[in-house]
């Protein structure tokens, strides 16, 4: 019998949910799961160098594509598990702004001399989604000079929470965890590419439970946890 724990390489933003699910799974099956949470980019490259992972959960499609092109994942196991939505947030310390997210809405004016914090628009997924959404709404050119790009969502969130930035664009899942921010509005799903969290069994995995755990991630128990976190579970 395989006693080695199952190793899951997962994007840092999935940490809370996956840890809870793994605890349930262990309670049910007695089998242990070990995670390595890091940036999707780092994990994908590590897979490329023969990392001993059984499952890979990415925070965006690009790095899963990268893995797939390099045959780092087992064919046919890839599935897009989760979705998320993009929200505009502001610090609770500010007087609530009356701003409706719509094409041409006066975001730039509302930001004023302050900043809008989000992920880095070139490299961090949430930043790329934000750029896409603002572009689709026709306000990107005005807002672009006021963007402060953090290197991950939580850093962006912290900038808003501390009141350093007047607004932030983050995932809905993150926004609800931070009491010091208030959601101003949610970006229409069509304004940006779908926010997706793909998972797959790695090509090198020999662990007998890899597929089973992958399936468990779609189990009702797991779905409950994901949804409690604010994810939309895609079926």
């Amino acid at each position, binding site marked *: 019998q395989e006693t080695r724990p199952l190793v899951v390489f997962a994007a840092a933003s999935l940490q809370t949910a996956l840890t809870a699910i793994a605890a349930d799974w262990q309670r049910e099956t007695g089998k242990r799961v070990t995670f390595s949470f890091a940036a999707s980019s780092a994990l994908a490259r590590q897979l490329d160098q023969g990392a001993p992972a059984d499952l890979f959960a990415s925070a965006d499609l*690009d790095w899963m594509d990268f893995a797939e092109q390099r045959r780092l994942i087992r064919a046919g196991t890839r599935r897009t598990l989760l979705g998320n939505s993009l929200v505009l947030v502001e610090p609770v310390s500010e007087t609530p702004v009356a701003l409706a997210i719509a094409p041409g809405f006066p975001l730039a004016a509302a930001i004023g001399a302050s*900043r809008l914090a989000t992920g880095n628009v070139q490299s961090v997924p949430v930043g790329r989604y934000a750029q896409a959404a603002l572009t689709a709404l026709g306000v990107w050119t005005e807002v672009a000079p006021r963007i*402060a790009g953090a290197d991950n969502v939580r850093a962006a969130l912290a900038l808003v929470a*501390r009141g350093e930035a007047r607004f932030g664009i983050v995932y809905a899942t993150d926004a609800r965890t931070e009491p010091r921010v208030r959601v101003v509005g949610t970006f229409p799903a069509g304004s940006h590419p779908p926010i997706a969290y793909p998972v797959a069994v790695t090509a090198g995995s020999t662990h007998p439970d890899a597929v089973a755990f992958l399936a468990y991630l779609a189990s009702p128990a797991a779905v409950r946890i994901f949804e409690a976190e604010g994810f939309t579970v895609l079926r």
Partner: protein
Amino acid sequence: MYALSLTPEEWTAIGLSLRVATVATLASLPLGILAALLLARGRFPGKSLVDALVHLPLVLPPVVTGYVLLVLFGRRGPIGAWLESTFGIVLAFRWTGAALACAVMGFPLMVRAVRLSIEAIDTRLGEAAGTLGASPAWVFLTVTLPLALPGIIAGAVLCFAKALGEFGATITFVSNIPGETQTLPSAIYNATQVPGGDAIAFRLSIVAVIIALAALVASEWLARRSGNRHGAPA
């Protein structure tokens, strides 16, 4: 070289990084030398604590340091708010903030180097200067400081090099605003975060290495010029 042909944004990042690294190094030198002097020669209670404080940025993950900087020096932070209201100095989201982050991250390296050099100075030379009428302050300026020059140069080089590579604390504190706070390492980091960005990252890394090499060669030259104080025959 074609491979190194850089985009305008990259040039901006390079220029900014040079400015940030230079300012970080020069601005932290006086404090660094003072701290080194205090740790090398001073005797006061809580010296270990000061020592630990100086080393803090080395011990903490850069993200934590960046966050602490944000909390203290952000516009809403106690020091940041005071600086803004008193001197009109804003660090948040400015290149000056990047310089502060780099200075803080390079500080332990600088202090250690200077301290080592100060500790290696024969205290009797200061005594000799004292008998010639030099007050402790003058002794510091005319004896300790010049004799610690190897350490000061080494400390400055370390701080400068660290500033060229520092990224975690910087991006956490002042985020990544092209033209304002996007330094060379931030640009490199960005490149590594997108599939296929390796070539760009490599190119920019080469630039960083070339700058560091130039700084090293300049520092060695400076150190040599400042005179060999040992090992001469007699």
